């Protein structure tokens, strides 16, 4: 079953139309990559899926966006939606608090107070994000002391702590060195079996390495959506080909 079903989605920032009639389905246990030049609407689409766009004044939406059949704008409370759809940002953004509190923040926000349950969640999610061994001796120390790559994996763990069904990642490795990037990619491939993952990336090789499907966006339109292998070897649309081969514009 599809986790996300998007049909004829339009989005405006004031008078500027950032998404035009976008339709896309993302399934469980699959990584979908969103690619396209800056300002093409790929990040906007990502932010629509957990309604982070609500924070932007003048943002209007029409069309249909569903999480497991439920309309994300009318049938789901926004905080519940965001719990079920985790998000990881371009720049690692751990809170200025301890590693433990970073992970526990989400569960606490959703009413979990038991110390035992929190301890368990912290260990489980840090293990799932493949960072437990690196931080288990410094759970009480500030998360800001971790390296960039560790911070990003912490942010992934933090997102996992509220037991989401999907993970949205907005260029999660663009601020990281190749080794940290490799670790995150490895992690995403491991997490894939349990989550629907959607990733915005500017790195073509990254898209080919980790994603199953790829959608190419241009000026707010989804130009092509297909198996990643297809997009990067035999795209149907000339514009896709021009973009992925770097002949764009």
């Amino acid at each position: 079953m599809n986790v996300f079903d998007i049909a004829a989605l339009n989005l405006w920032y004031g008078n500027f139309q950032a998404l035009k009639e976008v339709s896309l389905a993302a399934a469980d246990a699959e990584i979908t990559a969103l690619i396209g030049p800056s300002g093409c609407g790929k990040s906007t689409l990502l932010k629509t899926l957990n309604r982070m766009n609500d924070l932007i004044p003048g943002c209007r939406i029409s069309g249909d966006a569903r999480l497991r059949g439920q309309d994300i704008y009318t049938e789901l409370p926004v905080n519940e939606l965001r719990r079920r759809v985790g998000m990881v940002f371009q720049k690692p953004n751990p809170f200025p608090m301890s590693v433990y509190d970073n992970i526990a923040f989400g569960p606490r926000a959703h009413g979990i107070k038991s110390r035992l349950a929190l301890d368990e969640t912290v260990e489980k999610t840090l293990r799932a994000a493949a960072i437990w061994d690196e931080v288990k001796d410094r759970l009480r120390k500030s998360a800001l002391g971790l390296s960039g790559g560790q911070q990003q994996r912490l942010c992934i763990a933090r997102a996992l702590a509220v037991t989401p069904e999907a993970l949205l990642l907005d260029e999660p490795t663009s601020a990281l060195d190749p080794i940290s990037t490799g670790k995150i990619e490895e992690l995403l491939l491991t997490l894939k079996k349990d989550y629907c993952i959607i990733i915005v990336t500017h790195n073509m090789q990254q898209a080919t390495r980790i994603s199953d499907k790829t959608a190419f966006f241009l000026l707010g339109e989804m130009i092509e959506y297909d198996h990643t292998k297809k997009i990067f070897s035999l795209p149907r649309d000339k514009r896709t080909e021009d973009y992925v081969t770097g002949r764009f514009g």
Partner: protein
Amino acid sequence: MKISFQKNNRKFSEIFLGALTWGAALLMCAVLIYIVGFIVWRGAPYLKPSLFSPVYNSVNVSLLPALVSTVYMTVFALALALPFGLGAAVYLAEYARRGRKVVRMIRLATETLAGIPSIIHGLFGMLFFVTYLGWGFSLLAGVFTLTVMILPLIMRASEEALLATPDSYREGAFALGAGKLRVVFRIVLPAAAPGVLAGVILAVGRIVGETAALIYTAGTVAQMPFAETGPPLVDVFSSVRTLSVHMYALTREGLHTNEGFATAATLLIVVIAVNAAAARLAGRVGRNGA
């Protein structure tokens, strides 16, 4: 030849500017050390036990009542100004739509309020709290006047600190499905705490250093602010003097100049102690994020 000439030239200007900035810094330190040294040198020999007797009279010119009054004045004024100032700052930074007209007006009003000379605050306090509300020269009138004075300080400092908190913290917290209130109180405020504390330190400095506004509102009576039943109950309508006012009174009379310096030395110690405590607190908050 020309290149080496330019190189020498740059070297010269670098040395010159370096010396200038170093000189300025040294001068600043020298002035500070001179002032502190002068006050301690003049005042320390007169820090006698009689100066700390619980009751003031014209012979012992005790500073203890003034010290106690100063502490109460500070605590009460902060207790009033901090919730209001911080609340207003949270509203402006987190809830009000950025760039709205109301926000700009409130900001303008705060800035104006911050720029008003303290004597005007004193006159207003006298006319409104002392006379119109009939509180008389009292601790309460002094506290309210001081509150009005430090409110913009705390508000501005808090707002700056809140606005300086990266949006990525808010985004990260909202993305986890946290509510606005939780995001503000658990994420943004702790992150802004050092900035808020800086505002509080400024406000404390303003309170303990204030004379003009207090002479017209709290009066100059050198007595403990306690109620008749005794400490720790406080009679907010009793007229009191703070350390600064006490100093002013002593030096103006010209009879107890030495004790005035002793008071100044005490005030200095109090200010340094408050700043050190605040710095430690800010350090702790900054490290652990509360």
